[in-house]
């Protein structure tokens, strides 16, 4: 059955070599002009004025190409990718792949921002300090927390930083040796287990209840004790199910003397609906590169905004941005701080973009973001569960979800042999980039976690649903077609097992040449 919504997609296939292989000795992109005698007479010869210790002994081994060759090379590569700006990027759930307004790029590329030096005098950086200060005021309002910093370079570092504060807090109370356990849940982001564990805490993971999908109160009660340092929790969890017992759980941990740390990396279903404070959290973090629209940039320019309640403020990493009524300043004089966790100010490009995003939306706009996300998600869920064969949404049957759903292709695999890996690759033949399956542990078989946030139109969500429907039909009619996908992409299925031994990894041209014996 043909469907008019589906594209006859085919991606470019350039068979493009690595840029080093394109190199021809002697080719240049820019030929520098000869220096005028007049200048040489005034300042001396270039090679003489550069200090000896700064001079290269050997030329850098860079590829040698002309400008048009470089341009063609990268344009070809760009045609072989499927990024956020070109595909309907609903598939990468838990990441909130939303449209990043292009005007924000003009702000961060503006020389007033891009040429700031981290060691500039505060007198000359009042503008960015004001933005950072006001951004933390916004986040205080959004979360109900009392103080924020933008030091962590991502969500994981923010959780680690919160775990560090937890450790410092109990050390101060003289309970450092006693409060050694933290509790998390199986569908919270795994960094909520990993970061405190790295900090030396023992991790206890609550498993989901068979029906609701989140842990029962009794499970928590069974393990909470005077050894409990904290509860690290995501809500809604990865399943998109909101844990309605959150306040009760937090209260139980508080009564046992523990603290509660909320992972709100993905806040997209929560703006204006529920705050960290009302859930009872003592600490939390937001990923400015997710719900706050700053791009992920391939795991690059991230920022985990870390927020705490008043009684924990003194432990925040330095510097904290302050305001004395006249001027903004960096406060490094904080004796109880857990210290410096990142160079200079943190990733302030993400702060600037997120600030712009909040300013342009306002409080009502933020609430609308969440309402639209939830609406979009439940619309997609309805279509997938009623129209697509072989898909299911384990736990919390017949109930609405928040901003995302963790589906299972388990039935499809059972009935056709086509699993989530296969569906994922086949989706590329319809112009989608790969989708997100699941964080570990894989409690839901053959998982798949899309997140149709507020920046996708109904038409796009429909197209996405139609693709899933089509691939499922193909799996039942012609499983081989799906299992051997992609067919329309720049590369075909590579059936080789992935590289797992670090010895086999080749990540640079230098290593490649060494391993292949090329001079």
């Amino acid at each position, binding site marked *: 059955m043909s469907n008019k919504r589906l594209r006859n997609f085919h991606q470019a296939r350039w068979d493009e070599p690595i840029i080093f292989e394109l190199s021809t000795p002697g080719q240049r992109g820019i030929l520098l002009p000869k220096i005028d005698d007049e200048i040489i007479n005034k300042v001396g010869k270039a090679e003489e004025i550069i200090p000896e210790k700064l001079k290269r002994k050997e030329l850098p081994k860079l590829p040698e190409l002309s400008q048009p060759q470089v341009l063609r090379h990268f344009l070809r590569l760009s045609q072989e990718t499927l990024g956020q700006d070109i595909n309907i990027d609903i598939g990468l759930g838990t990441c909130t792949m939303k449209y990043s307004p292009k005007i924000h790029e003009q702000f961060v590329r503006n020389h007033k921002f891009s040429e700031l030096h981290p060691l500039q005098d505060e007198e000359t950086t009042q503008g960015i300090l004001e933005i950072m200060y006001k951004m933390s005021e916004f986040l205080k309002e959004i979360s109900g927390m009392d103080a924020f910093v933008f030091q962590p370079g991502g969500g994981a570092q923010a959780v680690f930083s919160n775990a560090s504060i937890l450790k410092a807090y109990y050390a101060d109370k003289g309970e450092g040796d006693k409060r050694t356990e933290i509790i998390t849940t*199986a569908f919270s982001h795994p960094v909520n287990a990993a970061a405190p*564990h790295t900090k030396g805490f*023992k*991790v*206890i*993971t*609550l*498993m*989901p*209840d*068979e029906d609701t999908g989140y*842990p*029962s109160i*009794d*499970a928590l009660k*069974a*393990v909470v004790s005077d050894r409990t340092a904290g509860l690290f929790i995501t809500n809604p969890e990865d399943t998109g199910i909101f844990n309605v017992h959150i306040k009760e759980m937090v209260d139980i941990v508080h009564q046992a003397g523990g603290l509660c740390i909320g992972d709100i990396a993905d806040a997209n279903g929560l703006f204006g609906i529920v705050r960290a404070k009302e859930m009872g959290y003592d600490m939390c973090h937001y990923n400015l590169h997710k719900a706050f629209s700053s791009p992920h940039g391939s795991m690059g320019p991230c920022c985990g905004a870390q927020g705490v309640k008043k009684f924990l403020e003194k432990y925040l990493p330095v510097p904290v941005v302050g305001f004395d009524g006249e001027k903004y300043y960096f406060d490094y004089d904080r004796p109880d701080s857990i210290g410096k966790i990142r160079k200079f100010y943190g990733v302030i490009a993400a702060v600037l973009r997120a600030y712009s995003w909040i300013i342009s939306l306002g409080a009502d706009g933020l609430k609308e973001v969440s309402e639209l996300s939830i609406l979009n998600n439940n619309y997609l869920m309805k279509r997938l569960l009623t129209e697509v064969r072989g898909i299911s949404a*384990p*736990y919390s049957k017949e109930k609405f979800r928040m901003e995302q759903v963790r589906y299972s292709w*388990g039935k499809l*695999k*059972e*009935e056709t*042999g086509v*699993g989530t*890996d296969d569906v994922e690759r086949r989706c590329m033949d319809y112009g989608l980039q790969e989708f997100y*399956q*699941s964080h*570990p*542990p*894989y*409690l839901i*078989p*053959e998982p798949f976690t899309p997140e149709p946030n507020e920046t996708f139109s109904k038409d796009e969500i429909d197209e996405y649903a139609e693709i899933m429907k089509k691939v499922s039909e193909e799996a039942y009619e012609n499983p081989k077609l799906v299992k051997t996908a992609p067919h329309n992409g720049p590369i075909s299925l590579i059936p080789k*097992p*992935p590289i*797992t031994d670090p010895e086999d990894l080749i990540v640079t041209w230098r290593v490649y040449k060494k391993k292949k014996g090329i001079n």
Partner: protein
Amino acid sequence: MTKKIGLIINPIAGMGGRVGLKGTDGEEILKRALILGAKKEAPDKAKKALKYIKENIDGMKILTYPGDMGQKECNDLGIKHEVIGEIYDETTTSEDTEEAAKRMIENNVDLILFAGGDGTARNIFNVIGDRIPVIGIPAGVKIHSAVFATNPLNAGRIVEAFFKNPDIELKESEVMDIDEDEFRKGRVVAKLYGYMKVPYQRVYVQSLKSGGIYSDEISLEGIADYVIENMEKDCFYLIGAGTTTRKILERLKLPSTLLGIDIVKDRKLILNDANEKDILRITEGSRFKIVVSPIGGQGYIFGRGNQQFSPAVINACRKDNIIVISTPSKIASLKSKPLLVDTGDDETDEMLKGYYRVIVGYDEIYVYKCSC
């Protein structure tokens, strides 16, 4: 070299099910099943798997047994095969299954594909143990063993994976059976007979491409080391049956009983394969802990394959001295269903209910519910 697959179909498997006989073990029951109008179902189920194999695997040699123990099914589908052995009566018995398994081994097959139920699995296990890999097509009334695919088609797919992927992992999987006579009286008396090797497809664990692979082997070692490092002085440890618990003895460099209970104290072996009386005698007046692991896919921690842990033993031990260990993949295979106990004593079962700190890796704990 052409790979050889040994095909054994137990044609009468499953016949007792439709007519409410809870199994088809023994001639008498088979007669009753026939009187009640039972029809052979296993051949059709086996054919589903065989059809898939025919369509998807080239260059494979099938060795099978006469009549509807495989020959007929292959003929029906036009699958090339070689018949070995003979049967003397139209009504086949468990002896035929065992004889067929013997012949398969003599003929050096690479894998045995069989259709049947727990009884059939036991017969094959009796002969081959864990010498060659097997995969079962579920066709019996009782399917408690973990050596079966989830449906006939998937059995075909696992055979395909086995032949196409030279690096496929083999997993020791439980061969279980329940006593049919007892079961007909309404009592479940399950026994763990042993382990056979089954080609393992990672369904419930993270796929390789996501990186950070955590194999069952690494989890097992982590669990065992963690239990050992936390062993208390002067305390008896009763290590239950199974491959997960066996690792503890292995890491202690002590001999173990796969299907029995081993007793350890201060890292030294006290007794292998202890029965209930041994346990009560040795632990009397002393501190002791029980270490158990759930049965994969089912979740029983007491009452299946470890009846030596009787209500008397469990009650003497107390709940907080029970250590539950499991690999994360085994927990995932329970699909959020609770752990189970069935000791035969309601009060003991009731006492065992609740939440356990299940050790799933080195210093890694899942909190998991147990019901009865």
